[in-house]
């Protein structure tokens, strides 16, 4: 038997952070995805220990202010894409600059400098990523997914999917299902 899991990375990360910070007896407050405020000053050896234990989980302490801002941009975008409660009426660029208190030009340049890619690109990747999840793990068809993700048409989603991944949504679905079949056969 094989189980297919859908992760809520926010919760998983939060749990891990809580256990690590508690383990080192640090006083802290989790502010958002990827942001923790320390309530007391941290000793250098404690910092190293924390860094090491987080590294085991692929979690990295982002040191620079720029890095922190980029992380905030990413968090906002992920929130926008994955969280249906946030209904974005304005353009995402406006939303981002309002939310983070910087001009969009500044955010955009900063993002490209740190990540070698653009905010738009990141946003598209997130959306496509979400549509992949929905394609595989929900009963929704492509038209419904396009609607859910605020695309103007199914063709638009289709095109963006193809442009981003190089393959069509149906081919993607087919490939993953075949992979699962093979894994299933191996497991048996």
């Amino acid at each position, binding site marked *: 038997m094989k189980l297919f899991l859908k992760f809520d990375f926010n919760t998983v990360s939060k749990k891990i952070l809580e256990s690590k910070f508690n383990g080192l007896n640090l006083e802290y407050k989790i502010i958002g995805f990827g942001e923790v405020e320390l309530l007391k000053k941290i000793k250098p050896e404690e910092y190293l220990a924390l860094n090491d234990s987080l590294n085991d989980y692929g979690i990295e302490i982002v040191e620079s202010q720029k890095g922190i801002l980029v992380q905030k941009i990413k968090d906002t975008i992920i929130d926008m894409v994955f969280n249906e409660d946030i209904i974005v009426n304005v353009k995402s660029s406006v939303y981002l600059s309002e939310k983070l208190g910087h001009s969009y030009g500044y955010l955009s340049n900063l993002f490209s400098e740190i990540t070698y890619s653009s905010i738009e690109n990141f946003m598209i990747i997130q959306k496509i990523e979400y549509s992949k999840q929905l394609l595989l793990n929900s009963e929704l068809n492509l038209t419904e997914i396009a609607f859910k993700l605020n695309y103007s048409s199914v063709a638009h989603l289709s095109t963006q999917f193809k442009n981003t991944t190089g393959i069509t949504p149906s081919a993607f679905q087919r*490939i993953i299902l075949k992979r699962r079949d093979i894994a299933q056969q191996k497991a048996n």
Partner: protein
Amino acid sequence: MQTDYIHIILADDDEDDILFFTDAFDELKINTKVNTFKDGEELMDYLNDDQSRMPNVLFLDLNMPKKTGIECLKEIKASHKMSEIAIAIYSTSASEEDIEKTFVLGANIYIKKPGDFKKLKKLLSEVVSINWQYHTNGLNKDNFLLSL
């Protein structure tokens, strides 16, 4: 664990292609380290060595002596240790069927070698960047498929 460069491996028996590949990364302003292997066996020997550092992205030519790209792909996918490596198929031909076949076998990326150096640079930077995003943004790696 985390280092400041992206580790890339290319397994290809063609000198010219290796040249294009390394040149392209040299010219790209990405902090990368590129290792190359001349055939599938050499590659697998490296990967199977406990001392070796696993690459972030592995570029596999399909047509290689001793061990073909497909054979390497199957071995890598069967190994727990190498399961984290993003695998890019790097091939001259690209029929949709071939692409699907390698994807089903577990490849993440399929690149048709372009006939233009600028295009090559663009492709490679795209691969590295998207792979980086998958790596850093908690995206589901099982769903990572990219055909260029």
